[in-house]
């Protein structure tokens, strides 16, 4: 079986000047990332995430072991033509303007000028920098440069996208956009490898994660499985009358369980995005980035990734719900934030564990209505667990009209 990214006991040792082994940056790493998977490589600072990525990309050579991208060596132009890479900081030529920068990278891919021009405009639009496209990158803020770095990684319509700390330096809208984008790309059949220590981002988008510490994988698995608290249940609904609440409590009590019912708090992220969107609709002037929510249409047309993949890959990743139409507006995100074992693990590995409340973020702006994390409602009926894809569909729909689906306010 072929993987999009595969490493075989990959080891990278940095030696000192005398050739003595100094640091095991990556130690016997065995990664297998399937096609069409969103994979998160987590870990505290210095845990070897970026080193692993650089070895994968051929910027560093492994001390031992082997790394394959899309079934080959990333140094091979045929392979690298299908990879998009966004480094941990925006390493761009300061003297080029945004448009020239994208043009430069487009030409590195050998794209014909017509295609290049079209994609550049689309990408500039997508990352919200069309208005400043003729300003040198050197005058950009960090977040704006970050957006160009993202656009640069997408210009070849990559099959495999490697993002190193994609959301650092971005404002909440940019962060949200990147997360939406990742989900959208995944839906379109791309594989995404994400390095981050911002756990909220990873949790929102990744199918599978591996947590790295000291260059070794400490824990690996599907996000949902790793985080699910099987002893708790959560129900999300629209507004309920007091009688309905009373009934629910009765049902719960009859099961010898306790429950608390409150209105969920809006997420700050959602609130922020809403505020800015309103301002943008009023066309207030800004010299910064203008965010749009469009995705570049050239990025793999939205066919059905499942069926497409079925043809291409013998054993495609199952993305549940992809084929399912977005029937419901209400998404239940299965992962409650307070899972104890999980928190313990995270807390051990990273200082910045976002405890309890963080998780249930929806990637898109408006979405948040449901998923109140404090609310635990035991409901035996919740068999149709959550699936990410329905969230995505939902989000996408809503992102066009951000204001609508906000029951938290309603």
């Amino acid at each position, binding site marked *: 079986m072929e993987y999009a990214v595969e490493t075989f006991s990959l080891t990278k040792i*940095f030696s000192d000047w005398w050739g003595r082994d100094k*640091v095991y*940056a990556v130690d016997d790493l065995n990664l297998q990332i399937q096609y069409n998977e969103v994979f998160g490589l987590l870990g505290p600072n*210095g845990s*070897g995430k*970026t*080193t692993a990525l*650089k070895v994968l*990309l*051929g*910027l*560093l*050579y492994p001390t031992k072991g082997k790394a394959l991208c899309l079934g080959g060596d*990333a*140094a091979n*132009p*045929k392979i*690298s*033509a299908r*990879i998009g*890479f966004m*480094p941990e*900081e925006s*390493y*761009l*030529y300061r*003297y*080029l303007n945004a448009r*020239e920068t994208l043009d*430069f*990278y487009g*030409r*590195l*891919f*050998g794209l014909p000028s017509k295609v290049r021009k079209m994609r550049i405009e689309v990408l500039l639009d997508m990352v919200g920098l069309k208005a400043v496209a003729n300003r040198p990158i050197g005058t950009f803020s960090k977040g704006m440069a970050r957006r160009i*770095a993202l656009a*640069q990684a997408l210009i*070849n319509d990559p099959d495999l996208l490697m993002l190193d700390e994609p959301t650092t330096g971005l404002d909440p809208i940019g962060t949200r956009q990147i997360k939406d984008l990742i989900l959208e790309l995944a839906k379109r059949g791309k594989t995404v490898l994400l390095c981050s220590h911002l756990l909220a981002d990873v949790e929102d988008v990744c199918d599978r994660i591996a947590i790295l510490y000291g260059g070794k994988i400490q824990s690996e698995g599907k996000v949902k499985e790793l985080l699910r608290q099987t002893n708790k249940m959560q129900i999300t609904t629209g507004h309920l009358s007091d009688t309905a609440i009373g009934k629910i409590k009765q049902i719960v009590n009859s099961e010898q369980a306790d429950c608390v019912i409150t209105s969920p708090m809006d997420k700050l992220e959602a609130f922020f995005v809403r505020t800015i969107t309103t301002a943008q609709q009023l066309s207030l002037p800004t010299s910064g980035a203008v965010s749009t929510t469009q995705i570049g249409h050239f990025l793999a047309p939205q066919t059905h990734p499942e069926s497409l993949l079925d043809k291409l890959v013998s054993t495609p990743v199952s993305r549940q719900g992809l084929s399912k139409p977005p029937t419901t507006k209400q998404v239940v995100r299965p992962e409650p934030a307070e899972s104890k074992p999980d928190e313990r693990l995270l807390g051990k590995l990273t200082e910045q564990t976002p405890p309890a409340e963080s998780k249930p973020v929806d990637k898109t702006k408006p979405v948040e209505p449901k998923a109140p994390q404090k609310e635990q409602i035991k409901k035996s009926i919740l068999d149709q667990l959550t699936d990410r894809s329905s969230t995505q569909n939902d989000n996408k729909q809503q992102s066009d009209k951000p204001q609508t689906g906000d029951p938290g306010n309603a």
Partner: protein
Amino acid sequence: MRSIWAVATNTFKQAVRMKIAAVFIILLIVLLPTMAVSMTGDGTLKGKLQTFVSYGFSLTSLLLSLLTIIVSVYSLTSDINQRQIYTVLTKPIRRFQFLFGKLLGIILLDVVLLVLFSTLIYAIIIYIPKFQKAGPAELAQANNEFFTARAGLTPPEVDVTQEVIDTYNRLAETDQLPPDIIENKTSREDYIEALTHNIKLGKRAVAVGHDLAWEFKNIKPLEPGQSLFIRFKYNVSVNPPDLQIISKWFAGDDRQVKYGANVQTPIYTFDRKDLIRTFHEIEVPADAVAEDGYLAVGFFNVPLNDTVVIFPTEDGLEVLYKADTFYANFLRAVLLILFRLIFLACLGILASTFLSFPVAILLSLAIFFIGTISGFCLESFDFLSRNLSSVYSYTVRPIVQLLPQFDKFSPTKFLVSARLLSWSLLAKVVFYLICIKAALLWLAALLIFRYKEIAKVIV
């Protein structure tokens, strides 16, 4: 190919927009016209032209060389330091293509700047005579001795090997060898070398009342009717009181005299009085040359002189004739600079594949300056290591030989003396400087860069 070109144009933009090139451009644009106005040379039109072309060309060549070194080193090291290279090398471009793109960009920059400045210099040179309001005599001199490309023929060297051996044997038989040799203080080779030198000099020395003649073949002037020039310099055994030598010169086809045939082409004679140890030129009408390109030149040491006259071995006597136009020569001189710049670009790129910016600059500059005094360096190495001959000739010498020899093929030298810089000489330079030396540097750069770990050690 498209990706190589992308890197090349990006490198070009980098040099221009980071204002590295701007400093040099402004400096040259200001300095060249200033020099044209302020330099006067020896006061004649020719002198002014020579001075301007000498300084203008040297300055342009020097500044562009420095610029090339700086740009080539900066371009690669800054990409590595500021890590733009991460996003470039992860694109479908091979590392050798990336390096080649860099080189191409630098060459592109050099070509653009060279075209700009050589046009400027050429325009100034063409306009100087008009602004100068020079008289017809000065104009003629400038035309004959500056606005031309003259080939120089030196008399063929006489093979004196047999004579040296005979002399040595005779001295040995008659016990007249110097005592140093007999006592082995001086080696036999050294003595023979000295002897050879003496005998050769003897072939070019003319005693009082004697004459000396040289034969030249294959003289092919560019256009019929162009004058030839005999260029000479006297050395003497005893300085004459006024430091002048009185002489009689002949030029023409002397074969017709020898064999008693009718004189077909005129034989010219010149009576002259010239300062010693300086170069002089005698203009000879073109019809002195026989149809088959033969010309004999004779010198008679008039008895009025009281000294032996010696023509120095290297440049004591030459026949010069116009073999090409000034324009073509100028073009080739510019090309010569371009090849030098290409070499330096390869050098700078090689240095920056394994050194940081300041060190790479230092190394490249050191090699550049050694290259400009390569003659001196080679000689001193040869001299200092005479006693270690075999060790030296298999270790240091090949390396020293690999250094560029910018001074040996200085374009200024050719333009100032209006010497023909022939295509064949240019081809020779290309072969040694580009095909061998620059190619070796380039291979080394590719090899180092191929196996270099691009990313910094960050854990």
